C-alpha cells in the first residue's frame, strides 16, 4: 500500500495522466484524501441513515395511527425510537448530506480549488460518523431509563432524566456518539473555513462566490462556535453520571436548567446549521432554472450572515415555560422575531430571482419551488411560536412538532432532494428518469404535507409531543397524519428506484445537462469530474 502511494506521488510530476488515476479500492475509500470521494461517502452514509431514521418515523406513525398501545406495547421503546429518530435525522442524515456530502463535493469545485485545505482531516471527519452511528445503535441494546433499553430522553437529552433518571449505560453510549459526531463536524468546519478563505481561485473574490459557498461558510462558523458548547454540556452530563459531579443535579446544588441553557446555546444555531446549506442549494437551483442570477446577491449573502449571528442570541425561546424570568422571556421574544426579517428577505429574493426569468420546471426546480412555499409555512408558525405568550399554549405540543418538521422535512429535506437531483448528473455522469423523479416529488409533497399539516391542529387542541398514545379526541388527525407518512415512504422507494435505474441505464449526462442557467464552475468540468481537477487554477473574471 505504501509503495503504491509513493508511486502515485511520483506520478504527480507527469501532469495530466494523474488527473484520472484512481488508487486501489481500500486506499480510495478508506484512506481517501479526495473531496469528491469523501463527499460520495457522506452521501451514501446519509441515504442509509435516512432510511433508518425514516423507518423509525414510519413505526412511530404506525403506533400513533390509532389510539391505544396497539403496535408497541412498551412506551419506553417508543421514547427510544423518538430519540433515535431525532438524533439520526439530524446528525446522520441532514448534516452529512448537506455539509459533508454536497459541501465537500461542490465547495472546492465552485471556488476553483483542487481539493479541501486539509484532505486527510476531511477523511477522519467522515469516518468518525460510522463510528458515532455504531455507538448510537449500541445504546439501543443496553439499559437506559425507565427500566428499558435505549435512550428515551428525546434528542435534547434533558437532565436530570438523562443523568440520574437514566441509570443504565445507554446514555453514556449516546453521549460518546454525539461527541464523535460533534468532533467530525468541528473538524469539517475548520476545513471549510480554511478552504473558502484561502483557496479561492484568482479572481474569485468573496463577493463573487456562489451563494452555496457562502451558506457553507456561515454554517461552518456556526458549527465551530456552537458544537464546543454542546460538547461541554454533554461532558458535564457524563461526569454527573459517572464521576460524581453535580452540574445538573438539584439534590447536591446543581441546576437542571443549566443543561438546557448550554444545550440550546448549541441547539438553536444547530437548526440554522440544518437549513443554511439548504438555502444555498435553493439559490443555485433557482438561479439555474430561471436562467437568471440570484436577485440581490449581497442581500442574500449577508442575510445568511445575519441569520447566523442572530441565531446565537435567541436560544431561550426553547425555554419560555421553564420558569425563567419574564423580562428574559421578553428579550428572547424580541430577538427571535428579528430573525424573521433576513429570512423573509431571502424568500422574497428567491421569488424575485424567478420573476422575469425563463423558468424550466425540471425536477430540481420542483423541489425548490416546493421549498419556497413550505418553508414559508414553517417559518410563519415559527413567528407564532416566537411569542412567549402563545408558546405557553404551544410548547411541547404537536404544534411545535409540525413547525419544525415543516422547516426540516419540507425545508431541509426538500433542498437535499433538490440538490441531489440537481447534482446527481455531475457526480455520477448519468441522467436519471425525470418522470420518476417528479413522481418522487409529488409523493413527498403530498405525503409530507398530509403528515404534518394536521399536526398543527393536534398541537392547538392539546396533544403533547413524545407520546405513544393520546386521548381519543385526537384520533382523527392522527390517522390522517399516519396515512401521509406512508405516502412519503412510497416516495422514498421511488427515489431509490430512480437512482438505481439511473445507474443501470448509464445514460451520459455531459458536463452541463441544465443549460445556460448553470453558470457555476462545476458545470465547466466533465461529469463526473476528473479525480483531480484544476491542476491549473482557473481564472475568474
Amino acid at each position, binding site marked *: 500500500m505504501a509503495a503504491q502511494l509513493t508511486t502515485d506521488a511520483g506520478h504527480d510530476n507527469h501532469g495530466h495522466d494523474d488527473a484520472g488515476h484512481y488508487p486501489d479500492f481500500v486506499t480510495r475509500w478508506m484512506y481517501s484524501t479526495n473531496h469528491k470521494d469523501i463527499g460520495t461517502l457522506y452521501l451514501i452514509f446519509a441515504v442509509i441513515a435516512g432510511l433508518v431514521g425514516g423507518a423509525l418515523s414510519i413505526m412511530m406513525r404506525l403506533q400513533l395511527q390509532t*389510539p391505544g398501545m396497539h403496535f408497541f406495547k412498551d412506551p*419506553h421503546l417508543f421514547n427510544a425510537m423518538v430519540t433515535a429518530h431525532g438524533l439520526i435525522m439530524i446528525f446522520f442524515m441532514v448534516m452529512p448530506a448537506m455539509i459533508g456530502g454536497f459541501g465537500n463535493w461542490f465547495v472546492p469545485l465552485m471556488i476553483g480549488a483542487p481539493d479541501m485545505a486539509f484532505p486527510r482531516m476531511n477523511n477522519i471527519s467522515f469516518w468518525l460518523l460510522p463510528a458515532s452511528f455504531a455507538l448510537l445503535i449500541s445504546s439501543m441494546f443496553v439499559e437506559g431509563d425507565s427500566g428499558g433499553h435505549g435512550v428515551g430522553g428525546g434528542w435534547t437529552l434533558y437532565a436530570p*432524566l438523562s443523568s*440520574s*433518571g437514566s441509570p443504565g449505560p445507554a446514555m453514556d453510549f449516546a453521549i460518546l456518539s454525539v461527541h464523535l459526531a460533534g468532533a467530525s463536524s468541528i473538524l469539517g468546519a475548520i476545513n471549510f473555513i480554511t478552504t473558502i478563505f484561502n483557496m479561492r481561485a484568482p479572481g474569485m473574490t468573496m463577493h463573487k462566490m456562489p451563494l452555496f459557498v457562502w451558506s457553507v461558510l456561515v454554517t461552518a462558523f456556526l458549527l465551530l462556535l456552537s458544537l464546543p458548547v454542546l460538547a461541554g454540556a454533554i461532558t458535564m452530563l457524563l461526569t454527573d453520571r459517572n464521576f460524581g459531579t453535580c452540574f445538573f443535579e438539584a439534590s447536591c446544588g446543581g441546576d437542571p436548567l443549566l443543561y438546557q441553557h448550554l444545550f440550546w446555546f448549541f441547539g438553536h444555531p444547530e437548526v440554522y446549521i440544518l437549513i443554511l446549506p439548504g438555502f444555498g442549494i435553493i439559490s443555485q437551483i433557482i438561479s439555474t432554472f430561471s436562467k437568471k442570477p440570484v436577485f440581490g446577491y449581497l442581500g442574500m449573502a449577508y442575510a445568511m450572515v445575519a441569520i447566523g449571528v442572530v441565531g446565537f442570541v435567541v436560544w431561550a425561546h426553547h425555554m419560555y*415555560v421553564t420558569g425563567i424570568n419574564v423580562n428574559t422571556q421578553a428579550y428572547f421574544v424580541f430577538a427571535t*422575531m*428579528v430573525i424573521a426579517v433576513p429570512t423573509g428577505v431571502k424568500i422574497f429574493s428567491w421569488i424575485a430571482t424567478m420573476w422575469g426569468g425563463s423558468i424550466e420546471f425540471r425536477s430540481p426546480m420542483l423541489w425548490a419551488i416546493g421549498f419556497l412555499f413550505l418553508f414559508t409555512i414553517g417559518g410563519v408558525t415559527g413567528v407564532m411560536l416566537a411569542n412567549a405568550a402563545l408558546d405557553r399554549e404551544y410548547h411541547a405540543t404537536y404544534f411545535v412538532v409540525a413547525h419544525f418538521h415543516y422547516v426540516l422535512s419540507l425545508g431541509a429535506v426538500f433542498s437535499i432532494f433538490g440538490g441531489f437531483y440537481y447534482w446527481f448528473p455531475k457526480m455520477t455522469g448519468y441522467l436519471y428518469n425525470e418522470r420518476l423523479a417528479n413522481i418522487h416529488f*409529488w409523493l413527498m409533497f403530498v405525503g409530507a404535507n398530509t403528515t404534518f399539516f394536521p399536526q398543527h391542529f393536534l398541537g392547538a387542541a392539546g396533544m403533547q409531543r413524545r407520546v405513544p398514545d393520546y386521548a381519543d*379526541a385526537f384520533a382523527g388527525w392522527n390517522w390522517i397524519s399516519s396515512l401521509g407518512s406512508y405516502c412519503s415512504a412510497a416516495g422514498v422507494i421511488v427515489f431509490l428506484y430512480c437512482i438505481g435505474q439511473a445507474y443501470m441505464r448509464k445514460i451520459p449526462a455531459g458536463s452541463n445537462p441544465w443549460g445556460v442557467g448553470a453558470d457555476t464552475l462545476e458545470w465547466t468540468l466533465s461529469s463526473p469530474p476528473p479525480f483531480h481537477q484544476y491542476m491549473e487554477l482557473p481564472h475568474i473574471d
Partner: protein
Amino acid sequence: MRLGDKVSGWLGAIGATLVSGLTARVAFAGYGRGDPWQIGLQDPVTSIARDNVWFNDVVFWMMVAITLFVMALLLIVMIRFNSKANPTPSHTHHNTLLEVAWTVIPIAILVVIAIPSFKLLYAQYSYPKPDLTIKATGNQWYWSYDYADHKGVAFDSYMLKDDETQALRDKHVDAPRLLSVDNEVVVPLNKVVHVLVTSKDVIHSWAILSFAVRTDGVPGRVSSTWFKAERLGVYYGVCSELCGKDHAFMPIAVRVVADDVYAKWLDVRKAGGKGADDKARALIQASISVPNQAVAAAAPGAPTTQTP
C-alpha cells in the same frame, strides 16, 4: 395528465377534510379537552386564556395572509415566467426600493405583533393576590398536590387506566381515556389560584390549555403560574415534558366547583383518614349538574355520558 388528476384528487380530499373540520369546530367547543377534528386552541375559561386565543387568532390570520401572498407570487411567477411564456430571461438582479420595502414592511408587521405580544406576556406574569395556593409536584409518573393554605390537604393524582375509564363511561360518567384521574384538583369558581410547580425527580410540566397555563416542574426549583377560572367544569391537561416511560400517562385534571362545594370538599380532605379519596370523589360527582356544563354532550362523536 394522470398525475395531475391524482394530485387534484388528493388536494380535494385534504380540502374537504379541512372544511369539515372547520365547520365541526364551530359546532361544538373544546372546554378543557380536545375535540375530535379540532382545529384551533381549546376554549378559554380565564381572561388570560381569552386574550391568548384572541392574540393567536390575530397572529394566525396575519400569517395566513403572508403565506397566501407568497403563494400568489409563486403562482404568478410560475405562470408568467415559465420558459414557454417568457423565452428570454431578464437580467435584473437589483432593485433598491424593493429590497428596502421587503425589509421594512416585515419589520413593521413584527412590531404590530410585538405590542400585544408583550402586553399579553406581562399580563400572564402579573399575579393578582391569590385566594388559594396549590403546590403541584411532578413525580414519575403522577402528580402530587398540596393545598398550601390548609394543613393536611394533600393527595396524589394518578391517571385512571383504560379499563377504569371504560367502566366509568359504561356507567354514564364522563371519563375521557388518558385524561381522567383518580383525585382531581378542586378549585372554587372565580377565585385566583396560584400554582407552584416543582418535581421530585425529573423535569415534568404542568399545563391546562383552557387556562393558557403551562410551567415546567424542575427539581430543585419552584416555578409558578396562576389562573382564575370563570366557568364550572373539569379541565384537563397533560404532562408537557418528556419524563420517562409514562410521560403520556400522567394527566392533570382541575375541577372548578361552586364555593359551597369547594368548602365541603376541603372539609372532607382536611378530615382525611381512610376513604377520604372516595368521599371526596363522591362529593364532586354529586355536585355535577347538567345545565351549564352540557356543551360536550351535544358534540357528535362525544361520549353519551353525563356531562362533567
